[in-house]
């Protein structure tokens, strides 16, 4: 991976990029390496408030309600959960937000680890 500094619309960002092969896989792939990591993005300039990320209301997909970092994953794959159980804790600028299961079911997949940076709306946990 290489760290670059890019300028978009007059704003400069630091990003970490990884070379990909033709199939979109990492050219120096390991089984756990993400395809792309970035330390900064170039969001479109907008003064309008962003719509809230869909919290899992009735869906098995539990997504992050805001951009931040994973403090803890509070469930395990295969665990039975009920709607309202805390499954993930996300931190943003020293504010911890608890994320809850929106449905009853079984934790089918966990998409994040403690310490991961996440975006608003990013999938955290899948409940089947």
């Amino acid at each position, binding site marked *: 991976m290489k760290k670059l500094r890019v300028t978009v619309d007059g704003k400069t960002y630091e990003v970490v990029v990884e070379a990909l092969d033709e199939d979109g896989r990492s050219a120096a792939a390991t089984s756990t390496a993400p395809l792309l990591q970035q330390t900064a993005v170039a969001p479109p300039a907008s003064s309008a408030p962003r719509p*809230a*990320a869909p919290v899992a209301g009735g869906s098995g997909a539990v997504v992050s*309600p805001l*951009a931040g*970092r994973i403090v803890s994953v509070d469930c395990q794959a295969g665990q039975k959960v009920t709607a309202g159980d805390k499954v993930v804790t996300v931190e*943003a600028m020293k*504010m911890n*937000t*608890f994320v809850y299961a929106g449905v009853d079911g079984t934790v089918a997949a966990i998409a994040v680890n403690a*310490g991961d940076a996440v975006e608003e709306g990013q999938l955290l946990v899948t409940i089947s």
Partner: protein
Amino acid sequence: MPGTPSKKASCWSRFPERGHGTTDGHIASNAEPGDPPVNAATDPSDLILLNPVGSAGWRLFQCAEAVSTNDLARSLHPWNAVRAARQTTGRGRFGRQFVSDEGGLWISAVLPATDPSARWAGFSLMVGCHLVKMLEEWHVPAARLRWPNDLMAGRKKLGGLLLEQAQPGALIVGFGLNVSNAPWDHDPALATIATSLCRETRRDWDLETVTTRTLDALADAHQAMLEGGMAAAISELNNRWASPVPVELQLSTGSTTTGRLAGLDPEGHLRLLDAEEREFLVEHQSVEKLVELL
């Protein structure tokens, strides 16, 4: 160990909302500020209710000792707060423990937050900004913020914040401030990195006065967030950091980057200056740790 928080707000009905009367026999409604707390709280029912505090009419509960005031606050309605004389397992960011000895202000306050979580993402910075203004009123030398919102007097830490959005519709603001306590007596390593309000202002402070002003500051921050949000406050917030300070950012990717921290932009990105004074931005969620290179 902290008690297990309830999944839903099932304990809220036990405590009065702002402006309502007292509730059950576990609450002593006639206690005065300064009365010694008599119970070590392991459950919200152990809390003692004081008379309304501050201009916003906060209802303040207190106890002699708590595992964590944030854990107790999860059972409270908005505009209620809980203060402990000591915390046994006070929490900082990412669960790091800190010393909470007697003489400091260890308090958690609940504020209404009916908007979606993302709407409140920068609120911790807003709170930090208003608390620094409070320190400036009290003539704390070199009062400032350190990313993300440590309260500093120069290079030494006075206090810290941890906010939780544990229940829909409510935010918990956990705040710890060294007032007359001496945490370095418990941990000598703190002597060079921590300070107290009494030390910095060279005078005694009444804990009730500090509590009341703190709760007023939280109410002001809440109102400012509702009125204009972070974008409206970004200039004032950026005035509360030290003048561009050299920092090293340890990123979640495992890499590091250095520069001088110049503040935030309206989207919440950290603004840094490189050696050639060119500005570049870093997403806040990518920053695992910020180290000041003073």
